[in-house]
């Protein structure tokens, strides 16, 4: 039987999506359901002086109106930060309470203060307009850079500072910088982004008063984790009386990790009114209240020798957390950022210092890449600048500082198990025709255009693990994953995974893996996820962990099935279990022609007996049935890496940047399905290039979101991209039996510095901030013209 791992298997999930049979949360309706509209603060920071619902209550069709007072009375808990971070001075981080409905004070535009529940959506909307809230508007803090100088937003949190974190050794860095021939320094902004999964968030909460069970359908990347948080911290219901279902979910990118206000409020309220409640975000609500990403202000320095050896690195970063710290809010700018700060280079001394601040803006949390794009942007912009200042070719300078051997023990935290960064660089250069660049530049020049080339080499740390390590660093949960493999008596297989697919193709990739492990045709394997009533508790999907953690749990559960199959075969064929081999779905007794198919074994396990004879196929003490569960907790992160090269052409008359070529050469270890990995790379690149050239979330000084719709926030479109040129190198991960590494975030990590390095190269080294809009680039072109004419 040919191996399916490594093949371009078409997706099992596609037909339902292509024929309109997908079932997203907003597609589900329950009999007698009501509709919720949230009343949200129009102010970034204000005291609620009076909230009057009397008029709204009389509005047609209103079932109930609930506010922060009822939430407080019922002791419903708030939203939480999932990681506790300690400051450099040893003190614990300071986080404010974040009630699901604000009672006394609102802290960002969109912060909900009440929910209106009515018989129809229209009636809920009309009634919500009649809720009267008297606000005392306070001065908002919106600037990341100046947040520590602003008014104190949360009582008791001085300077709006959540923590002041350090990773690394300041003294060693000081000594390294003293030895440097040159110090390259840079001030950069990692622009704020809005994830914008195409499916707006939604939830539908139902309550059964007889069983006292709440069922919540919601747009979540991790239904089990949501249930745990809602139960343990939200106090909504005991875990066994709360079922969370995340059916088809239309993209997440990190924005659907969090339990949101609406999930808690609708679940709690459904029980209160004993009716189902449906809420679907309008896109404008998504813009205001989905978590945002990035938003760092950084000063970084690299100490170098004249011949290009890196001696030391440091960064001082202010990271904006928004109004509240949410699930991955505090870890994103710390343990997902700092350890990657030195990039793919051997740098003997380094530190990363991060001050995380609260502002009156939407909460900032994990968005595709989460911390690693910010780290990569910092080091790769610095290295590119170093190459300009030292006059050393950008690829040579990088290779000069790549590690020469693996495992590669990095300065700050990680020990990277495998990789070959030189091979990746050389292949990328060849794919991009790096050596032919000068001719293309001259061609652009002859047409009056400016051409630039940018390189970045990255590694990333994904599939966060092991649990003991992450919990020691403050994580509130372990980051293992579960799998359950169940045979039916007639031989088909259902695989339950604790991870969740919202575009990642688990139904296909995981079925390929199980098909190879069990020798069962892929069409006889179903992958089930997304429902806490089905399968074992699991941690969900984020941080490129599904395959490297969840996929391996499936492998391990399949191996247990095979072990049991060997024992049963041995009994049935009167052999010793050690003599039974398993291959391509058959258990074969060595040196004989005796064998059983895995289907026959499954049948025997479920129907263990024969007519007229007291005879069991099961060995003494063996349980009937064929079902195994495995939990996998990896010994380390996985470390994909690669080099990307971009070329841009700029029209100096208009400032328009055209991305002419984009080459990505990545090492994801063994690839299960090349078609799906390509898709992940393309999508990540689009988001990374989007950050560099188009996307930007902007608040004005009063805290109003200036980019709150698709009219104002530039989403990349089909005509913004060239055809990407994608290739791979391969070194297997040594920390899992498949040798796989995560691939979901690489594009979003590598693309921003690659593109910006190209833009800045074209602009003669002038720094500009992301996104490189036509206006900024046009101004830089004018400066370039001035300085060129001066030089002449």
């Amino acid at each position, binding site marked *: 039987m040919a191996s399916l791992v490594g093949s371009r298997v078409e997706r099992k999930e596609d037909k339902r999506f292509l024929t309109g049979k997908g079932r997203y949360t907003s597609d589900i309706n329950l009999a007698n359901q009501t509709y919720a509209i949230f009343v949200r603060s129009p102010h970034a920071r204000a005291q609620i002086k009076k909230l009057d619902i009397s008029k709204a209550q009389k509005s047609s069709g209103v079932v109930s109106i609930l506010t922060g007072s009822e939430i407080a009375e019922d002791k419903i808990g708030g939203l939480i930060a999932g990681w506790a971070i300690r400051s450099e001075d040893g003190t614990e981080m300071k986080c404010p309470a974040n009630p699901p409905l604000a009672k006394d004070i609102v802290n960002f535009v969109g912060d909900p203060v009440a929910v209106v529940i009515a018989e129809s959506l229209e009636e809920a909307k009309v009634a919500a307009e009649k809720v009267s809230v008297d606000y005392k508007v306070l001065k908002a803090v919106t600037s990341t850079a100046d947040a520590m100088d602003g008014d104190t937003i949360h009582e008791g949190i001085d300077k709006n500072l959540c923590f002041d974190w350090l990773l690394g050794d300041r003294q060693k860095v000081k000594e390294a910088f003293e030895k440097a021939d040159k110090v390259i320094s840079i001030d950069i902004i990692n622009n704020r982004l809005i994830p914008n*999964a195409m499916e707006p968030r939604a939830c539908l909460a139902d309550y059964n008063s007889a069983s006292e069970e709440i069922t919540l359908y919601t747009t979540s990347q991790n239904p089990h984790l949501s249930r745990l948080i809602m139960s343990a911290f939200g106090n909504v219901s005991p875990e066994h009386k709360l079922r969370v279902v995340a059916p088809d979910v239309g993209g997440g990118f990190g924005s659907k990790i969090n339990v949101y206000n609406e999930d808690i409020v609708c679940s709690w309220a459904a029980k209160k009114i004993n009716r189902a409640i449906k809420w679907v975000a309008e896109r404008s609500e998504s813009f205001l209240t989905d978590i945002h990403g990035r938003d760092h202000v950084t000063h970084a320095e690299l100490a170098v020798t004249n011949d290009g050896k890196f001696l030391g690195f440091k960064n001082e970063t202010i990271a904006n957390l928004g109004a509240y710290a949410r699930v991955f809010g505090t870890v994103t700018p710390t343990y997902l950022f700092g350890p990657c700060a030195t990039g793919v280079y051997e740098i003997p001394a380094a530190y990363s210092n991060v001050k995380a601040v609260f502002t009156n803006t939407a909460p900032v949390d994990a968005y595709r890449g989460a911390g690693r794009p910010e780290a990569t942007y910092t080091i790769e912009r610095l290295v590119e600048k170093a190459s300009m200042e030292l006059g050393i070719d950008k690829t040579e300078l990088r290779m000069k500082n790549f590690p020469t051997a693996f495992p590669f023990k990095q300065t700050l935290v990680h020990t990277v198990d495998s990789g070959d960064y030189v091979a990746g660089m050389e292949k990328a250069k060849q794919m991009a025709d790096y050596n032919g660049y000068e001719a293309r530049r001259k061609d652009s020049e002859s047409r009056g255009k400016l051409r630039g080339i940018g390189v970045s080499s990255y590694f990333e740390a994904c599939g966060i693990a092991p649990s003991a390590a992450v919990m020691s660093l403050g994580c509130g949960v372990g980051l293992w994953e579960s799998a359950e493999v169940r045979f039916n008596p007639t031989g088909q297989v259902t695989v339950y995974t604790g991870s969740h697919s919202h575009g990642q193709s688990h139904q296909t990739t995981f079925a390929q893996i199980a098909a190879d492990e069990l020798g069962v045709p892929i069409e006889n394997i179903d992958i089930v996820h997304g429902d806490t009533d089905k399968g074992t508790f699991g941690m969900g999907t984020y941080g490129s962990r599904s395959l490297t953690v969840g996929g391996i749990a499936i492998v391990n559960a399949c191996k247990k099935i095979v072990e049991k199959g060997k024992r049963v075969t041995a009994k049935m064929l009167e052999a010793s279990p050690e003599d039974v081999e398993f291959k391509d779905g058959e258990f074969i007794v060595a040196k004989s022609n005796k064998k059983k198919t895995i289907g026959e074994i499954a049948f025997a396990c479920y129907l263990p007996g024969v007519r007229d004879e007291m005879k069991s196929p099961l060995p003494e003490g063996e349980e009937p049935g064929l079902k195994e569960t495995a939990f996998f907790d990896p010994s380390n992160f996985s470390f994909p890496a690669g080099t990307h090269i971009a070329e841009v052409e700029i029209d100096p008359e208009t400032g328009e940047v055209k991305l002419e070529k984009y080459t990505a050469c990545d090492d994801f270890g063994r690839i299960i399905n090349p078609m799906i990995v*390509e898709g992940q790379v393309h*999508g990540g690149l689009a988001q990374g290039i989007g950050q560099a050239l188009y996307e930007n979330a902007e608040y004005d000084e009063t805290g109003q979101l200036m980019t709150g719709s698709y009219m104002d926030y530039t989403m990349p479109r*089909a005509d913004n991209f060239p055809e990407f040129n994608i290739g791979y190198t391969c070194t297997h991960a040594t920390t899992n039996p498949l040798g796989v590494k995560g691939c979901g975030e690489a594009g979003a990590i590598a693309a921003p510095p690659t593109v910006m390095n190209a833009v800045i190269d074209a602009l003669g080294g002038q720094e500009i901030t992301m996104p490189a809009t036509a206006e900024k680039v046009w101004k830089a072109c004018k400066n370039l013209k001035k300085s060129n004419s001066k030089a002449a």
Partner: protein
Amino acid sequence: MRKVTLEINGKKVEKEVQDNTLLSTFLRDHLNLTGTHIGCDTSQCGACVVHVNGNSLKSCTALAADIDGSKVTTIEGLATNGKMHPMQEAFKKLHGLQCGFCTPGMVMSAVDLLQKNKKPSDTEIRDWLEGNICRCTGYQNIVAAVKEAATKM
């Protein structure tokens, strides 16, 4: 309220609707045709594209009452006798979708492109799809799928 008569995916439908009911809402909430998706509130995303009298239209930009008497095809009506349309097949073959949310609108829009331009270039495909936002695929495999479908239609 007024009565509208439409032919939806080949079947005659008569319904009472309010004057302000959007076609997208009508399809989803009145007819349970939930394949047509709503991804924004400013007619930008294109997840709700359907065909009205053969032409692609963002169904959030039309009132059901305004298109009385029209023929509407939604993503649910694209396959014939259980066999997917060549555009649907091409999207599957070339991985032109991931989360699937933008997909119905993307497919309906792409089918209309090929009705109007049998052999579009890459640039023409990318220009045509400017009104459909996809956050997952980076568009490359969508473009490839449209080209593939063009060879089959």
